Protein backbone atom coordinates (compact mmCIF):
# COMPACT_ATOMS: atom_id res chain seq x y z
CA UNK A 1 0.00 0.00 0.00
CA UNK A 2 2.02 2.94 -1.24
CA UNK A 3 -0.37 5.72 -2.15
CA UNK A 4 -2.79 6.84 0.55
CA UNK A 5 -6.37 5.86 -0.12
CA UNK A 6 -8.29 8.94 -1.14
CA UNK A 7 -11.61 7.17 -1.37
CA UNK A 8 -14.00 8.61 1.23
CA UNK A 9 -15.02 5.79 3.49
CA UNK A 10 -18.77 5.30 3.79
CA UNK A 11 -20.02 6.76 7.00
CA UNK A 12 -17.51 9.57 6.90
CA UNK A 13 -18.56 13.02 5.94
CA UNK A 14 -16.53 15.23 3.62
CA UNK A 15 -14.49 16.60 6.52
CA UNK A 16 -13.28 13.05 7.17
CA UNK A 17 -14.87 12.97 10.56
CA UNK A 18 -16.25 9.56 11.38
CA UNK A 19 -19.90 9.57 12.29
CA UNK A 20 -21.08 7.30 15.04
CA UNK A 21 -22.89 4.94 12.69
CA UNK A 22 -20.12 3.99 10.28
CA UNK A 23 -20.68 1.01 8.07
CA UNK A 24 -18.83 -1.09 5.58
CA UNK A 25 -18.57 -0.35 1.85
CA UNK A 26 -21.93 -1.11 0.23
CA UNK A 27 -23.61 -1.37 3.64
CA UNK A 28 -23.35 -5.15 4.14
CA UNK A 29 -20.63 -6.64 6.33
CA UNK A 30 -18.05 -8.84 4.63
CA UNK A 31 -19.33 -12.13 6.02
CA UNK A 32 -22.79 -11.39 4.62
CA UNK A 33 -21.30 -10.48 1.27
CA UNK A 34 -19.36 -13.77 1.15
CA UNK A 35 -22.55 -15.70 1.94
CA UNK A 36 -24.45 -13.90 -0.83
CA UNK A 37 -21.54 -14.28 -3.25
CA UNK A 38 -21.43 -18.04 -2.67
CA UNK A 39 -25.18 -18.19 -3.32
CA UNK A 40 -24.78 -16.19 -6.55
CA UNK A 41 -22.09 -18.56 -7.86
CA UNK A 42 -24.26 -21.62 -7.19
CA UNK A 43 -27.23 -19.84 -8.75
CA UNK A 44 -25.23 -19.25 -11.93
CA UNK A 45 -24.08 -22.88 -11.95
CA UNK A 46 -27.70 -24.12 -11.73
CA UNK A 47 -29.63 -21.74 -14.01
CA UNK A 48 -33.16 -21.02 -12.79
CA UNK A 49 -32.77 -22.87 -9.48
CA UNK A 50 -33.65 -20.83 -6.39
CA UNK A 51 -30.72 -20.85 -3.96
CA UNK A 52 -31.76 -20.18 -0.34
CA UNK A 53 -29.73 -17.46 1.34
CA UNK A 54 -29.69 -15.80 4.75
CA UNK A 55 -31.39 -12.56 3.73
CA UNK A 56 -30.61 -9.67 6.06
CA UNK A 57 -32.79 -6.88 7.26
CA UNK A 58 -32.08 -3.83 5.19
CA UNK A 59 -32.77 -0.20 6.03
CA UNK A 60 -35.93 -0.37 3.93
CA UNK A 61 -39.04 -2.49 4.23
CA UNK A 62 -39.52 -5.86 2.56
CA UNK A 63 -41.23 -5.28 -0.75
CA UNK A 64 -38.98 -2.35 -1.54
CA UNK A 65 -36.40 -4.46 -3.27
CA UNK A 66 -34.34 -5.75 -0.35
CA UNK A 67 -33.39 -8.87 -2.32
CA UNK A 68 -32.15 -6.90 -5.31
CA UNK A 69 -30.38 -4.45 -3.01
CA UNK A 70 -28.51 -7.27 -1.25
CA UNK A 71 -27.45 -8.83 -4.55
CA UNK A 72 -26.29 -5.46 -5.86
CA UNK A 73 -24.45 -4.72 -2.59
CA UNK A 74 -22.60 -8.05 -2.83
CA UNK A 75 -21.36 -7.50 -6.39
CA UNK A 76 -20.88 -3.72 -6.64
CA UNK A 77 -17.44 -2.12 -6.61
CA UNK A 78 -16.10 1.43 -6.77
CA UNK A 79 -15.64 1.17 -10.56
CA UNK A 80 -19.27 0.30 -11.25
CA UNK A 81 -21.86 2.57 -12.80
CA UNK A 82 -25.30 1.90 -11.38
CA UNK A 83 -28.71 2.39 -12.95
CA UNK A 84 -31.87 1.71 -10.97
CA UNK A 85 -35.30 1.48 -12.57
CA UNK A 86 -38.78 0.94 -11.22
CA UNK A 87 -41.33 -0.13 -13.85
CA UNK A 88 -38.90 1.15 -16.46
CA UNK A 89 -38.60 4.61 -14.93
CA UNK A 90 -35.47 6.11 -13.38
CA UNK A 91 -37.40 8.78 -11.53
CA UNK A 92 -39.96 6.93 -9.42
CA UNK A 93 -39.75 6.62 -5.63
CA UNK A 94 -38.30 3.13 -5.41
CA UNK A 95 -35.64 3.79 -8.04
CA UNK A 96 -34.66 7.16 -6.59
CA UNK A 97 -34.36 5.79 -3.03
CA UNK A 98 -32.26 2.77 -4.01
CA UNK A 99 -29.99 4.86 -6.23
CA UNK A 100 -29.50 7.35 -3.38
CA UNK A 101 -28.82 4.47 -1.00
CA UNK A 102 -25.95 3.14 -3.11
CA UNK A 103 -24.57 6.60 -3.78
CA UNK A 104 -24.41 7.05 -0.03
CA UNK A 105 -23.10 3.66 1.11
CA UNK A 106 -20.89 2.78 -1.86
CA UNK A 107 -20.13 6.19 -3.39
CA UNK A 108 -20.66 4.73 -6.87
CA UNK A 109 -21.43 6.64 -10.01
CA UNK A 110 -25.05 6.51 -11.08
CA UNK A 111 -26.53 6.91 -14.53
CA UNK A 112 -29.90 6.78 -16.19
CA UNK A 113 -28.46 5.64 -19.54
CA UNK A 114 -28.87 1.92 -20.02
CA UNK A 115 -25.82 1.62 -22.25
CA UNK A 116 -23.51 3.32 -19.72
CA UNK A 117 -24.47 1.16 -16.73
CA UNK A 118 -22.50 -1.87 -15.57
CA UNK A 119 -25.13 -2.88 -13.03
CA UNK A 120 -28.82 -2.26 -13.60
CA UNK A 121 -31.14 -2.98 -10.71
CA UNK A 122 -34.70 -3.30 -11.87
CA UNK A 123 -38.18 -3.61 -10.53
CA UNK A 124 -40.56 -5.21 -13.03
CA UNK A 125 -39.05 -4.21 -16.39
CA UNK A 126 -36.17 -5.07 -18.69
CA UNK A 127 -34.78 -2.00 -20.48
CA UNK A 128 -35.70 -1.61 -24.16
CA UNK A 129 -32.07 -0.99 -25.11
CA UNK A 130 -30.49 -4.40 -25.74
CA UNK A 131 -28.13 -5.30 -22.90
CA UNK A 132 -24.50 -5.99 -23.68
CA UNK A 133 -21.83 -8.37 -22.48
CA UNK A 134 -20.39 -7.19 -19.17
CA UNK A 135 -23.66 -5.73 -17.92
CA UNK A 136 -25.46 -7.31 -14.97
CA UNK A 137 -29.21 -7.03 -14.60
CA UNK A 138 -30.39 -7.41 -10.98
CA UNK A 139 -34.12 -8.08 -10.53
CA UNK A 140 -36.10 -7.31 -7.40
CA UNK A 141 -38.34 -10.31 -6.89
CA UNK A 142 -41.38 -10.43 -4.59
CA UNK A 143 -42.41 -14.10 -4.90
CA UNK A 144 -39.63 -16.19 -6.47
CA UNK A 145 -41.57 -19.46 -6.55
CA UNK A 146 -43.56 -19.76 -9.81
CA UNK A 147 -45.58 -22.63 -8.33
CA UNK A 148 -46.45 -20.84 -5.08
CA UNK A 149 -49.98 -19.81 -6.01
CA UNK A 150 -50.67 -23.34 -7.22
CA UNK A 151 -49.10 -25.12 -4.25
CA UNK A 152 -48.58 -23.15 -1.04
CA UNK A 153 -46.30 -25.68 0.71
CA UNK A 154 -42.57 -25.05 0.22
CA UNK A 155 -41.82 -28.74 0.86
CA UNK A 156 -44.08 -29.69 -2.04
CA UNK A 157 -42.90 -27.08 -4.53
CA UNK A 158 -39.32 -28.03 -3.76
CA UNK A 159 -40.16 -31.66 -4.52
CA UNK A 160 -41.89 -30.61 -7.73
CA UNK A 161 -38.75 -28.79 -8.87
CA UNK A 162 -36.63 -31.77 -7.83
CA UNK A 163 -38.75 -34.15 -9.92
CA UNK A 164 -39.18 -31.64 -12.75
CA UNK A 165 -42.92 -32.04 -12.21
CA UNK A 166 -44.39 -28.96 -13.84
CA UNK A 167 -47.70 -30.38 -15.02
CA UNK A 168 -49.59 -28.12 -12.62
CA UNK A 169 -48.21 -25.03 -14.32
CA UNK A 170 -49.45 -26.23 -17.69
CA UNK A 171 -52.84 -26.97 -16.15
CA UNK A 172 -52.95 -23.38 -14.92
CA UNK A 173 -52.16 -22.03 -18.39
CA UNK A 174 -54.71 -24.44 -19.88
CA UNK A 175 -57.39 -23.18 -17.48
CA UNK A 176 -56.64 -19.70 -18.78
CA UNK A 177 -57.39 -20.89 -22.27
CA UNK A 178 -60.55 -22.73 -21.17
CA UNK A 179 -61.83 -19.61 -19.41
CA UNK A 180 -60.60 -16.78 -21.63
CA UNK A 181 -59.87 -18.45 -24.94
CA UNK A 182 -56.19 -17.55 -24.65
CA UNK A 183 -53.40 -17.56 -22.08
CA UNK A 184 -54.42 -14.53 -20.01
CA UNK A 185 -51.27 -14.37 -17.89
CA UNK A 186 -49.65 -11.05 -18.78
CA UNK A 187 -46.92 -10.62 -16.19
CA UNK A 188 -44.71 -12.97 -14.16
CA UNK A 189 -45.19 -15.31 -17.09
CA UNK A 190 -43.44 -18.61 -16.27
CA UNK A 191 -40.34 -19.56 -18.23
CA UNK A 192 -38.21 -22.70 -18.48
CA UNK A 193 -34.49 -22.06 -18.11
CA UNK A 194 -31.87 -24.22 -19.83
CA UNK A 195 -34.56 -26.86 -20.42
CA UNK A 196 -34.79 -27.75 -16.74
CA UNK A 197 -36.13 -25.34 -14.10
CA UNK A 198 -39.39 -23.43 -14.39
CA UNK A 199 -38.68 -19.93 -13.16
CA UNK A 200 -40.61 -16.81 -12.28
CA UNK A 201 -39.10 -13.92 -14.24
CA UNK A 202 -40.43 -11.60 -11.47
CA UNK A 203 -43.50 -9.51 -12.30
CA UNK A 204 -42.12 -8.16 -15.56
CA UNK A 205 -44.70 -7.89 -18.35
CA UNK A 206 -44.52 -10.95 -20.59
CA UNK A 207 -43.53 -8.44 -23.27
CA UNK A 208 -40.03 -8.64 -21.73
CA UNK A 209 -39.74 -12.44 -21.66
CA UNK A 210 -38.13 -12.74 -25.12
CA UNK A 211 -35.37 -10.34 -23.98
CA UNK A 212 -34.24 -12.87 -21.38
CA UNK A 213 -33.65 -15.57 -23.99
CA UNK A 214 -29.92 -15.84 -24.78
CA UNK A 215 -29.26 -12.37 -23.42
CA UNK A 216 -25.69 -11.10 -23.55
CA UNK A 217 -25.99 -9.87 -19.97
CA UNK A 218 -25.88 -11.85 -16.75
CA UNK A 219 -29.27 -11.79 -15.00
CA UNK A 220 -29.45 -12.12 -11.21
CA UNK A 221 -32.65 -12.31 -9.18
CA UNK A 222 -32.92 -11.46 -5.49
CA UNK A 223 -35.93 -12.07 -3.27
CA UNK A 224 -35.31 -10.57 0.16
CA UNK A 225 -38.39 -11.54 2.12
CA UNK A 226 -38.49 -15.03 0.58
CA UNK A 227 -34.71 -15.42 0.96
CA UNK A 228 -33.91 -16.75 -2.50
CA UNK A 229 -31.35 -15.89 -5.18
CA UNK A 230 -31.46 -17.25 -8.70
CA UNK A 231 -29.73 -16.49 -11.96
CA UNK A 232 -29.72 -16.82 -15.72
CA UNK A 233 -26.23 -16.81 -17.24
CA UNK A 234 -25.68 -15.12 -20.63
CA UNK A 235 -26.54 -17.08 -23.79
CA UNK A 236 -28.94 -19.34 -21.90
CA UNK A 237 -32.24 -20.62 -23.24
CA UNK A 238 -35.20 -18.99 -21.52
CA UNK A 239 -38.41 -20.33 -23.05
CA UNK A 240 -41.86 -19.08 -22.11
CA UNK A 241 -44.23 -21.98 -21.43
CA UNK A 242 -46.98 -22.43 -24.02
CA UNK A 243 -48.89 -24.96 -26.10
CA UNK A 244 -48.47 -25.94 -29.75
CA UNK A 245 -51.94 -24.59 -30.59
CA UNK A 246 -51.62 -21.60 -28.26
CA UNK A 247 -48.07 -20.37 -28.79
CA UNK A 248 -46.61 -17.73 -26.51
CA UNK A 249 -47.11 -14.19 -27.74
CA UNK A 250 -46.36 -10.79 -26.27
CA UNK A 251 -48.63 -7.80 -25.80
CA UNK A 252 -49.32 -5.69 -28.90
CA UNK A 253 -49.98 -1.97 -28.80
CA UNK A 254 -52.12 -0.37 -31.49
CA UNK A 255 -50.38 2.99 -31.33
CA UNK A 256 -46.86 4.36 -30.92
CA UNK A 257 -45.50 6.17 -27.85
CA UNK A 258 -47.19 9.59 -27.56
CA UNK A 259 -43.91 11.32 -26.71
CA UNK A 260 -41.27 9.67 -28.90
CA UNK A 261 -43.28 7.76 -31.48
CA UNK A 262 -41.59 4.45 -30.71
CA UNK A 263 -43.29 1.26 -31.80
CA UNK A 264 -42.52 -2.26 -30.56
CA UNK A 265 -41.89 -0.98 -27.03
CA UNK A 266 -43.85 -1.49 -23.84
CA UNK A 267 -46.23 1.39 -23.18
CA UNK A 268 -47.77 2.74 -19.99
CA UNK A 269 -51.24 4.22 -20.02
CA UNK A 270 -51.41 7.67 -18.45
CA UNK A 271 -54.81 9.08 -17.53
CA UNK A 272 -54.87 12.79 -18.36
CA UNK A 273 -58.21 14.06 -17.06
CA UNK A 274 -61.57 12.87 -15.79
CA UNK A 275 -63.17 12.98 -19.23
CA UNK A 276 -61.52 9.88 -20.66
CA UNK A 277 -58.39 11.60 -21.90
CA UNK A 278 -55.36 9.32 -21.89
CA UNK A 279 -51.99 8.85 -23.49
CA UNK A 280 -49.65 5.92 -23.99
CA UNK A 281 -45.97 6.51 -23.33
CA UNK A 282 -42.82 4.37 -23.16
CA UNK A 283 -42.49 2.72 -19.76
CA UNK A 284 -38.69 2.91 -20.25
CA UNK A 285 -38.04 6.61 -19.55
CA UNK A 286 -34.39 6.51 -20.61
CA UNK A 287 -35.30 4.95 -23.97
CA UNK A 288 -38.02 7.57 -24.50
CA UNK A 289 -35.80 10.51 -23.57
CA UNK A 290 -32.95 9.27 -25.75
CA UNK A 291 -35.31 9.02 -28.72
CA UNK A 292 -36.71 12.50 -28.07
CA UNK A 293 -33.16 13.86 -27.92
CA UNK A 294 -32.51 12.19 -31.26
CA UNK A 295 -35.41 14.15 -32.69
CA UNK A 296 -38.16 11.55 -32.68
CA UNK A 297 -41.48 13.22 -32.02
CA UNK A 298 -44.67 11.57 -30.84
CA UNK A 299 -48.08 13.11 -31.46
CA UNK A 300 -48.61 14.47 -27.94
CA UNK A 301 -45.08 15.86 -27.66
CA UNK A 302 -45.66 17.86 -30.83
CA UNK A 303 -48.82 19.30 -29.36
CA UNK A 304 -47.11 20.33 -26.15
CA UNK A 305 -44.26 21.98 -28.02
CA UNK A 306 -46.70 24.00 -30.13
CA UNK A 307 -48.73 24.87 -27.05
CA UNK A 308 -45.62 26.11 -25.34
CA UNK A 309 -44.66 28.24 -28.29
CA UNK A 310 -48.17 29.62 -28.47
CA UNK A 311 -48.09 30.45 -24.79
CA UNK A 312 -44.80 32.29 -25.00
Amino acid at each position, binding site marked *: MSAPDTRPAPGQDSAGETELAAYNFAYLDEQTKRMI*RRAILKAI*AIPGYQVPFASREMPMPYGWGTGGVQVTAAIIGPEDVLKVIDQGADDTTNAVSIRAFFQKVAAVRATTHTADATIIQTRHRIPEHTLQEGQVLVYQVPIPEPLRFLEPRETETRKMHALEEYGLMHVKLYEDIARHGRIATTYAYPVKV*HGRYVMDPSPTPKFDNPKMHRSEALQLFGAGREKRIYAVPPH*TDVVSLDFEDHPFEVQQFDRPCALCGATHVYLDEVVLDDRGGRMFVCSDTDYCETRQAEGHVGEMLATTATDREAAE
Partner: protein
Amino acid sequence: MLSRTETFSGGFADPVFDAQTAFRMLMDCMARPGEIGEVALSLSPPAPLGIAAGAVMLTLCDHDTPVWLSPKLSQSPVPGWLAFHGGAPVTPERHDARFAFFETKAPLPALGAFALGTQEYPDRSTTLIIEVASLKDGQPLLLRGPGIRDTAGIAPGGLPADFLRQWNENGALFPRGVDVVLTAGRQLVALPRTCKITAAAVAETPASEG
Protein backbone atom coordinates in the same frame (compact mmCIF):
# COMPACT_ATOMS: atom_id res chain seq x y z
CA MET B 1 7.60 -26.66 10.67
CA LEU B 2 5.10 -23.91 9.95
CA SER B 3 6.55 -20.56 9.15
CA ARG B 4 4.79 -17.87 11.16
CA THR B 5 5.51 -15.16 8.61
CA GLU B 6 3.92 -17.23 5.85
CA THR B 7 0.84 -17.73 7.99
CA PHE B 8 0.25 -14.10 8.87
CA SER B 9 1.31 -12.33 5.68
CA GLY B 10 0.24 -12.59 2.07
CA GLY B 11 -3.46 -11.92 2.48
CA PHE B 12 -5.51 -9.26 0.70
CA ALA B 13 -3.94 -5.83 1.10
CA ASP B 14 -7.41 -4.28 1.19
CA PRO B 15 -9.83 -7.06 2.16
CA VAL B 16 -13.07 -5.27 1.25
CA PHE B 17 -12.13 -4.05 -2.20
CA ASP B 18 -9.79 -6.92 -3.12
CA ALA B 19 -12.48 -9.46 -2.27
CA GLN B 20 -14.96 -7.52 -4.40
CA THR B 21 -12.54 -7.38 -7.34
CA ALA B 22 -11.74 -11.08 -7.09
CA PHE B 23 -15.38 -12.07 -6.70
CA ARG B 24 -16.55 -10.00 -9.65
CA MET B 25 -13.93 -11.62 -11.85
CA LEU B 26 -14.89 -15.08 -10.60
CA MET B 27 -18.60 -14.34 -11.11
CA ASP B 28 -17.98 -13.19 -14.69
CA CYS B 29 -15.95 -16.34 -15.33
CA MET B 30 -18.64 -18.57 -13.82
CA ALA B 31 -21.21 -16.83 -16.05
CA ARG B 32 -18.96 -17.25 -19.12
CA PRO B 33 -17.19 -20.61 -18.91
CA GLY B 34 -13.99 -20.63 -20.93
CA GLU B 35 -13.23 -17.00 -20.26
CA ILE B 36 -9.87 -16.69 -18.53
CA GLY B 37 -9.85 -14.38 -15.53
CA GLU B 38 -6.69 -12.82 -14.20
CA VAL B 39 -6.07 -11.99 -10.53
CA ALA B 40 -4.10 -8.75 -10.62
CA LEU B 41 -4.09 -8.32 -6.83
CA SER B 42 -1.04 -8.33 -4.61
CA LEU B 43 -1.46 -11.39 -2.49
CA SER B 44 1.00 -14.19 -1.87
CA PRO B 45 -0.53 -17.37 -0.53
CA PRO B 46 1.94 -19.93 0.81
CA ALA B 47 3.18 -22.53 -1.72
CA PRO B 48 1.94 -24.74 -3.19
CA LEU B 49 -1.31 -22.72 -3.24
CA GLY B 50 -1.45 -20.55 -6.37
CA ILE B 51 -2.32 -16.86 -6.39
CA ALA B 52 -5.69 -17.26 -8.10
CA ALA B 53 -6.57 -20.21 -5.85
CA GLY B 54 -5.58 -18.16 -2.81
CA ALA B 55 -7.75 -15.28 -4.00
CA VAL B 56 -10.75 -17.61 -4.40
CA MET B 57 -10.08 -19.00 -0.91
CA LEU B 58 -10.02 -15.58 0.75
CA THR B 59 -13.01 -14.35 -1.27
CA LEU B 60 -15.38 -17.21 -0.51
CA CYS B 61 -14.24 -19.22 2.51
CA ASP B 62 -15.11 -18.33 6.09
CA HIS B 63 -16.32 -19.97 9.30
CA ASP B 64 -19.50 -21.14 7.52
CA THR B 65 -17.64 -23.17 4.91
CA PRO B 66 -15.72 -26.33 5.78
CA VAL B 67 -12.74 -26.63 3.43
CA TRP B 68 -11.10 -29.84 2.25
CA LEU B 69 -7.43 -29.65 1.38
CA SER B 70 -5.44 -32.17 -0.66
CA PRO B 71 -2.92 -34.17 1.41
CA LYS B 72 0.00 -32.04 0.22
CA LEU B 73 -1.83 -28.77 0.93
CA SER B 74 -2.83 -29.89 4.41
CA GLN B 75 0.83 -30.55 5.23
CA SER B 76 1.85 -27.13 3.96
CA PRO B 77 1.40 -23.75 5.75
CA VAL B 78 -1.93 -23.40 3.90
CA PRO B 79 -4.22 -24.55 6.78
CA GLY B 80 -2.67 -21.94 9.10
CA TRP B 81 -2.92 -19.26 6.42
CA LEU B 82 -6.56 -20.15 5.76
CA ALA B 83 -7.32 -20.15 9.49
CA PHE B 84 -5.70 -16.76 10.03
CA HIS B 85 -7.06 -14.95 6.97
CA GLY B 86 -10.34 -16.76 6.40
CA GLY B 87 -11.24 -18.46 9.67
CA ALA B 88 -12.57 -21.47 7.79
CA PRO B 89 -12.48 -24.93 9.38
CA VAL B 90 -10.57 -27.65 7.53
CA THR B 91 -12.45 -30.91 7.23
CA PRO B 92 -11.06 -34.36 6.38
CA GLU B 93 -14.50 -35.42 5.11
CA ARG B 94 -14.93 -34.71 1.41
CA HIS B 95 -18.72 -34.76 1.50
CA ASP B 96 -18.75 -32.11 4.26
CA ALA B 97 -16.63 -29.68 2.29
CA ARG B 98 -18.08 -26.59 0.60
CA PHE B 99 -14.73 -25.98 -1.07
CA ALA B 100 -11.87 -28.32 -1.96
CA PHE B 101 -8.40 -27.23 -3.05
CA PHE B 102 -5.82 -29.13 -5.09
CA GLU B 103 -2.24 -28.18 -5.93
CA THR B 104 -0.67 -28.93 -9.33
CA LYS B 105 -0.49 -32.65 -10.17
CA ALA B 106 -2.45 -33.62 -7.09
CA PRO B 107 -4.32 -36.88 -7.73
CA LEU B 108 -8.01 -36.21 -8.24
CA PRO B 109 -10.24 -38.40 -6.08
CA ALA B 110 -13.67 -39.45 -7.36
CA LEU B 111 -15.79 -36.33 -7.80
CA GLY B 112 -18.74 -38.31 -6.42
CA ALA B 113 -17.02 -38.46 -3.03
CA PHE B 114 -17.55 -34.74 -2.60
CA ALA B 115 -20.89 -33.17 -1.74
CA LEU B 116 -23.10 -33.32 -4.83
CA GLY B 117 -26.11 -31.64 -3.29
CA THR B 118 -29.51 -33.27 -3.26
CA GLN B 119 -32.22 -33.23 -5.88
CA GLU B 120 -34.10 -30.73 -3.67
CA TYR B 121 -31.01 -28.67 -2.77
CA PRO B 122 -28.48 -29.07 -5.59
CA ASP B 123 -26.67 -25.93 -4.40
CA ARG B 124 -25.34 -27.78 -1.35
CA SER B 125 -22.40 -29.12 -3.28
CA THR B 126 -18.64 -28.75 -3.19
CA THR B 127 -16.78 -26.32 -5.41
CA LEU B 128 -13.39 -27.76 -6.41
CA ILE B 129 -10.47 -25.44 -7.05
CA ILE B 130 -7.90 -27.37 -9.05
CA GLU B 131 -4.47 -25.95 -9.88
CA VAL B 132 -3.15 -26.92 -13.32
CA ALA B 133 0.14 -26.12 -15.07
CA SER B 134 -1.44 -23.75 -17.57
CA LEU B 135 -4.79 -22.85 -19.14
CA LYS B 136 -3.55 -22.20 -22.67
CA ASP B 137 -0.75 -24.58 -23.59
CA GLY B 138 -2.29 -27.98 -22.93
CA GLN B 139 -4.93 -30.22 -24.41
CA PRO B 140 -7.48 -28.18 -26.43
CA LEU B 141 -10.99 -28.64 -25.09
CA LEU B 142 -14.33 -27.44 -26.42
CA LEU B 143 -16.89 -26.08 -23.99
CA ARG B 144 -20.63 -25.81 -24.56
CA GLY B 145 -23.48 -24.80 -22.30
CA PRO B 146 -25.09 -21.83 -20.55
CA GLY B 147 -22.90 -18.74 -20.69
CA ILE B 148 -21.36 -19.76 -24.02
CA ARG B 149 -22.79 -18.53 -27.32
CA ASP B 150 -21.68 -21.45 -29.48
CA THR B 151 -18.50 -22.99 -28.21
CA ALA B 152 -15.59 -21.76 -26.15
CA GLY B 153 -12.10 -23.19 -26.03
CA ILE B 154 -9.59 -23.74 -23.27
CA ALA B 155 -6.39 -25.77 -23.30
CA PRO B 156 -5.48 -26.71 -19.75
CA GLY B 157 -2.09 -28.33 -19.30
CA GLY B 158 -1.70 -30.95 -16.61
CA LEU B 159 -5.36 -31.72 -16.09
CA PRO B 160 -5.86 -34.82 -13.90
CA ALA B 161 -5.86 -37.90 -16.14
CA ASP B 162 -9.47 -39.01 -15.89
CA PHE B 163 -10.92 -35.53 -15.44
CA LEU B 164 -12.97 -35.55 -18.65
CA ARG B 165 -14.56 -38.93 -17.90
CA GLN B 166 -15.36 -37.82 -14.35
CA TRP B 167 -16.69 -34.48 -15.60
CA ASN B 168 -19.10 -36.24 -17.99
CA GLU B 169 -20.38 -38.38 -15.13
CA ASN B 170 -20.77 -35.23 -13.05
CA GLY B 171 -22.78 -33.57 -15.82
CA ALA B 172 -25.13 -36.54 -16.01
CA LEU B 173 -26.17 -35.90 -12.40
CA PHE B 174 -27.58 -32.45 -13.21
CA PRO B 175 -28.99 -30.56 -11.34
CA ARG B 176 -26.75 -32.23 -8.75
CA GLY B 177 -22.99 -32.15 -9.15
CA VAL B 178 -19.82 -30.31 -8.24
CA ASP B 179 -18.55 -27.10 -9.82
CA VAL B 180 -14.90 -26.64 -10.69
CA VAL B 181 -12.54 -23.69 -10.93
CA LEU B 182 -9.27 -24.41 -12.74
CA THR B 183 -6.46 -22.14 -11.61
CA ALA B 184 -2.99 -21.62 -13.02
CA GLY B 185 -0.91 -19.06 -11.18
CA ARG B 186 -2.79 -15.78 -11.49
CA GLN B 187 -5.33 -17.12 -14.00
CA LEU B 188 -8.52 -19.05 -13.59
CA VAL B 189 -11.33 -20.60 -15.61
CA ALA B 190 -14.67 -21.59 -14.10
CA LEU B 191 -16.48 -24.76 -15.10
CA PRO B 192 -20.03 -24.79 -13.74
CA ARG B 193 -21.72 -28.20 -13.72
CA THR B 194 -23.79 -27.27 -16.79
CA CYS B 195 -20.64 -26.98 -18.93
CA LYS B 196 -20.21 -29.77 -21.51
CA ILE B 197 -16.57 -30.50 -22.28
CA THR B 198 -15.29 -32.45 -25.26
CA ALA B 199 -11.75 -32.94 -26.46
CA ALA B 200 -11.26 -30.76 -29.52
CA ALA B 201 -10.12 -32.54 -32.68
CA VAL B 202 -6.54 -31.56 -33.46
CA ALA B 203 -7.37 -30.08 -36.88
CA GLU B 204 -10.34 -28.15 -35.59
CA THR B 205 -9.70 -24.66 -34.33
CA PRO B 206 -11.92 -23.78 -31.39
CA ALA B 207 -14.50 -21.26 -32.48
CA SER B 208 -13.97 -17.99 -30.74
CA GLU B 209 -16.71 -16.63 -28.55
CA GLY B 210 -17.55 -13.64 -30.59
